[in-house]
């Protein structure tokens, strides 16, 4: 027999009390794990939404002449006199150090064309990149697949009385409307989107680019660092991070994280208190037993080891249960409470080990005083029968 057998047998004897002891600590760990899981899912959700928001970096030519706004942002001079961007700049962005964080890179060339006596902005895009950038676009008809196919904004379609498959004359060239954008409520409703090369040729500015929109996955990466790297690669361009949407979401996450930490500390303190009171009661109940142990030659450290072993076992069980229950709670209640689409159900070994370690640590730390007290018990007082 070893000391651990004494601890295990004692825990088995006090099934009811041990159940509540484990339950108390498990509830604490469940809360912590569910809050961490929800935080992570919230972060993932924000990341996903960031992708849906589209571009979060805008690259403009360095120009004093600001003559057009696009998507609520000023765009450097359409005249593109001194400093222009080139289609090759878009390729360079793909080669920066933080290239794995780059999602879509969408170069655009913007001009104005006259159709049926109406001046309408014409935006040259690479449709494949544009589709990745603007996941919220709904197209009636199909996305352009050829150079002579275009996409027109909702308002353009209304003003020109056009439908999908209708032909249109742009700069003397006949093109076909492959699709009409569903109403976006943005300036996209007023634009004609055509293939970038087609627009460059039509407006006689081959390879020129008005601006480049970049979508970077930045919920975990420092967006400022990506901006710095692009600026270094394109010294002739002005690179700006669009931070507003990111910031408000990140602030929400930050508030939730702070709230989670506060709640976690409180519940863990309560868990620790439950262990403490339970262990104190156990030590008090076992006075006589401790007296016997001391009388037959147990050292003070042996008594402490028995108590700590019990706390360790309780902490381990509560850690495992708390981790699993925490995942369960966040999976089932996260979507209800925070309106998340889903909370990830994955067994994260680091989190699992962390939960078990934390639970065990709380169990053992809360038992320090009861263990010291037990070890200091006067054996003659403990053994009143003597």
């Amino acid at each position, binding site marked *: *027999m*070893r*000391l651990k*057998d*004494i601890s295990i*047998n*004692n825990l*088995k*004897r006090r099934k009811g009390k041990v159940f509540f002891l484990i339950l108390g600590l498990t509830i604490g760990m469940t809360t912590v794990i569910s809050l961490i899981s929800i935080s992570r899912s919230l972060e993932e959700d924000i990341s996903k939404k960031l992708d849906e928001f589209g571009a979060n970096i805008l690259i403009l030519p360095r120009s004093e002449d600001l003559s057009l706004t696009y998507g609520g942002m000023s765009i450097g001079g359409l005249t593109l006199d001194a400093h222009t961007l080139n289609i090759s700049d878009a390729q360079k962005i793909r080669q920066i150090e933080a290239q794995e964080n780059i999602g879509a890179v969408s170069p655009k060339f913007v001009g104005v064309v006259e159709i049926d006596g109406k001046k309408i902005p014409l935006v040259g895009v690479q449709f494949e990149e544009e589709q990745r950038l603007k996941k919220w676009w709904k197209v009636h008809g199909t996305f352009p697949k050829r150079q002579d196919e275009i996409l027109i904004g909702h308002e353009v379609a209304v003003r020109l009385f056009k439908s999908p498959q209708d032909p249109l004359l742009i700069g003397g060239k006949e093109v076909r409307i492959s699709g009409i954008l569903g109403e976006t409520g943005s300036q996209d409703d007023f634009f004609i989107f055509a293939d970038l090369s087609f627009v460059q040729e039509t407006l006689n500015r081959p390879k020129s680019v008005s601006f480049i929109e970049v979508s970077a996955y930045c919920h975990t990466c420092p967006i400022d660092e990506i901006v710095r790297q692009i600026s270094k690669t394109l010294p002739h361009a002005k690179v700006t991070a669009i931070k507003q949407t990111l910031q408000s979401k990140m602030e929400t996450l930050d508030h939730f994280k702070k709230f989670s930490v506060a709640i976690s500390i409180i519940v863990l303190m309560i868990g620790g208190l439950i262990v403490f009171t339970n262990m104190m009661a156990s030590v008090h109940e076992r006075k*006589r*037993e401790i*007296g*016997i*142990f*001391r*009388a*037959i*030659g*147990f*050292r*003070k*450290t*042996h008594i402490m080891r028995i108590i700590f072993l019990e706390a360790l076992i309780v902490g381990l069980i509560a850690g495992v249960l708390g981790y699993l229950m925490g995942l369960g709670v966040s999976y089932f209640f996260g979507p209800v409470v925070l309106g998340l689409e889903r909370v990830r159900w994955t067994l994260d070994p680091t989190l699992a080990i962390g939960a078990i370690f934390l639970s065990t640590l709380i169990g053992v730390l809360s038992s320090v005083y009861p263990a010291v007290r037990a070890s200091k018990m006067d*054996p*003659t007082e403990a*053994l009143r*029968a*003597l």
Partner: protein
Amino acid sequence: MSLIETKGLSKMYGSGEERVNALMGVNLRIEKGEFISVMGPSGSGKSTLLTILGGLNHPTSGEITMDGISIYELPPEKLADFRREYLGFIFQSFQLIPYLTVIENVVLPLSITDIPNREQMKKAGEILERIGLIGKEKRLPDQLSGGEQERVAIARALINSPPILLADEPTGNLDTKTGKEIIELFKSLNQEGQTIVMVTHNPDNTRVSSRLITLRDGRVEYGK
């Protein structure tokens, strides 16, 4: 050199007007292989003497040596080791651990040693056979009679083969017949060379002992 020797052993509890002199100037010499019965009325200091001999209760003054070791000069942890190696305790109300089986109670003092489990069980088996408890190893204390519980307590006290056995009223909670059986067991242990110091209220129990010491008001009234 005597196995146990006390010189001017005194123990006081409390202070001022509430001061109680539990033991006063007790001088004893107990030789190896002796069976000592300690008698005396309640409050005479019997239990105090036993706890002091057991290394559990520091005397207020005086000296006590066991096998030449001044036990109260040992650091606390060494004193605990001394208790484990030199002393076997038998308590009045058995004092078994209720959630441990018979065999687990018996090997309890070995649980903090390096002795392998198999050897622990072998030793316990031998002792249980010696005291007539074979077949009841897996029972819990509350599934045993008073006499059987006392035997388990004796087995636990003997598992370390201690040179000295200290017993406090070992028949106090037993019926006459079982009490006699236990005393007979003590007698045979003593005949095998075991040194025993037994506190008892029952004069009949003293018949088997080699020497009787009577205490009154903390002093040795008879026998030294």
